């Protein structure tokens, strides 16, 4: 990334995130399936990682020292595909093939089809375990790479999530960062009405994570938390990012009904118009 002042950097990330959100809408609309809500909530976190934090290089996807990103909530694939496309890892036109027969862009991220994906996920509760394995490998090799895992809050109801987190804490993996997309919603409604996960920050702390709570749509807070994680040498860091499911599209915001429901034509048009207006408002 070219050197830029923090304000410029943040403006640029915000504008990239708006483009990614538009692609999320286009992809789920074209496929008439997929998960817009959790893709839009995680967009700013993915943007900060792919466009700033991660040491990755589209020209060398198998660079051994690249940082690893595991999307444990693999259904948010549209956000990650769009970010990787804008960052140069795949042609932007390929986004149109999302979920089609023969596409590299599977419904849930798939490393066997798209090599810049570090780990295939989709069934919840497994990505964080793979991230722990990657972080252990780095330690064993003395490799400099860091591993980042993005979790859903519904995913935090799953036992394997905590088994993996326990292992990350136990092994004091300071090269591991668990990022929680705390959008408050899952498929059937709110996490707290279905199976409450609070007090979630205390749980991460009890599992030996240096735990930071931020607004997951505020880039200065996201970048600050990621920098803090890098400075943390005692053990792993957890970033609890409070987000809004469906962020950026008025009629999807805070609505569990858009977890796995794509926009229809009128909704897609309105969503794209709203996201485009957002970009004009902040030149």
């Amino acid at each position, binding site marked *: 990334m070219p050197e830029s002042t923090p304000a410029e950097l943040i403006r640029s990330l915000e504008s990239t995130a708006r483009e990614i959100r538009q692609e999320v809408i286009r992809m789920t609309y074209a496929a008439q399936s*997929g998960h817009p809500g959790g893709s839009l909530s995680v967009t700013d976190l993915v943007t900060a990682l792919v466009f700033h934090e991660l040491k990755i290089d589209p020209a060398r996807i198998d660079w051994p020292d690249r940082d690893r990103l595991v999307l444990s909530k693999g259904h948010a694939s549209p956000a990650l595909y769009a970010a990787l496309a804008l960052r140069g890892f795949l042609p932007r036109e390929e986004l149109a093939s999302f*979920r089609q027969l023969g596409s590299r*862009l*599977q419904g849930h991220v*798939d490393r066997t089809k798209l090599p810049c994906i570090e780990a295939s*996920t989709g069934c919840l*509760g497994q990505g964080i375990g793979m991230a722990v394995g990657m972080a252990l490998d780095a330690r064993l090799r003395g490799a400099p790479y860091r591993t980042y895992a993005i979790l859903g809050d519904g995913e935090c*109801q799953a036992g394997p999530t905590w088994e993996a987190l326990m292992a990350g804490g136990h092994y004091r993996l300071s090269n591991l960062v668990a990022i929680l997309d705390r959008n408050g919603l899952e498929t059937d409604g709110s996490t707290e009405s279905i199976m409450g996960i609070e007090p979630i920050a205390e749980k991460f702390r009890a599992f030996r994570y240096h735990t930071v709570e931020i607004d997951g749509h505020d880039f200065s807070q996201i970048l600050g938390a990621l920098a803090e994680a890098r400075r943390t040498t005692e053990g792993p860091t957890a970033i609890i990012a409070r987000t809004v499911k469906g962020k950026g599209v008025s009629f999807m915001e805070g609505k569990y009904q858009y977890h796995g429901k794509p926009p229809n034509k009128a909704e897609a048009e309105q969503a794209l118009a709203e996201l485009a207006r957002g970009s004009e408002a902040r030149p």
Partner: protein
Amino acid sequence: MTAVIGKAQSLRDAYGHALLELGEKDPLLVAMDADLSGSTRTILFGQKFPDRFFDVGVMEPTMMSIAAGLALQGRTVYASTFAVFAAGQAYNFVRQSICYNRANVKIVATHGGLLVGADGGTHQIVEDIGLMRGLPGMTVIVPADAPTTRAATFAVAERDGPAYVRLTRENLPTVTDGSFQIGKAAELRSGSDLTIVAVGALVARALEVAEELAKVGVSTRVLDFASVKPFDEPALLRAARETGALLVLEEHSVLTGVGALVASTTSENYPVPVRRVGVPDVFGESGEPWALLDRFGMSKERIRNEAWELLRLRGKVQ
């Protein structure tokens, strides 16, 4: 007898409504889900009986052990989620908490097989029939249509002990009159040259191919094998004896599914040529649901070719 192929209906809706009726009849009955109640349709029960409905969130293994705990206190428990989570994620909890304990839990799993479609290979479980039929004491039902789904939902309640009912996400054409019975195969079409044994979404394809074969003088028996365990061994061996060749169709891995069951049963008792049409030893992928069946070796053309191959093997055609 020639079955008619009726309009496509939702198996999941049939289940949801049947479960609601069961809830009205049995005040002790409890239903559970793991954050997919809209898709599995257990939400219908949940809205009517909120006190007896537990949507536990994303914790399929523990849903199974909680279900077993409830069942061991004398309740019938229905637990639903997608097949990949019910049979896959929760396997050892189904095995020990439910089957080993002989707990009266009815697992009704939706989204079995490739017809899951766009979600892709992670969600398209084609191993569940094999996993579930391998469990001692487990009843396994794979309905082909909505009427059988309704009948099977009631039938497993009548039979004490664990059950696994595998449903398909896509609407399926109605091919039965809903007179399903556990342990019985339904002969949907009589015939003497060849038998097609089919389950689930491929029963309608079996009937279509049988109809085409009839036009060129081939008489094809079609057995709907919805009751995979216990299965109708007499009907299977009768078909082997009377028609001399068996073609098995399943939207499931050929390694461990109904084809494997049919081949092993006939080879031990009355060996005849058996062909298995199903998913080869690969994972699925994203795509339009019905296009996936063609892509992964279950096209009508493939079924026809296998039928002709069997007829040639038996010397019934050149």
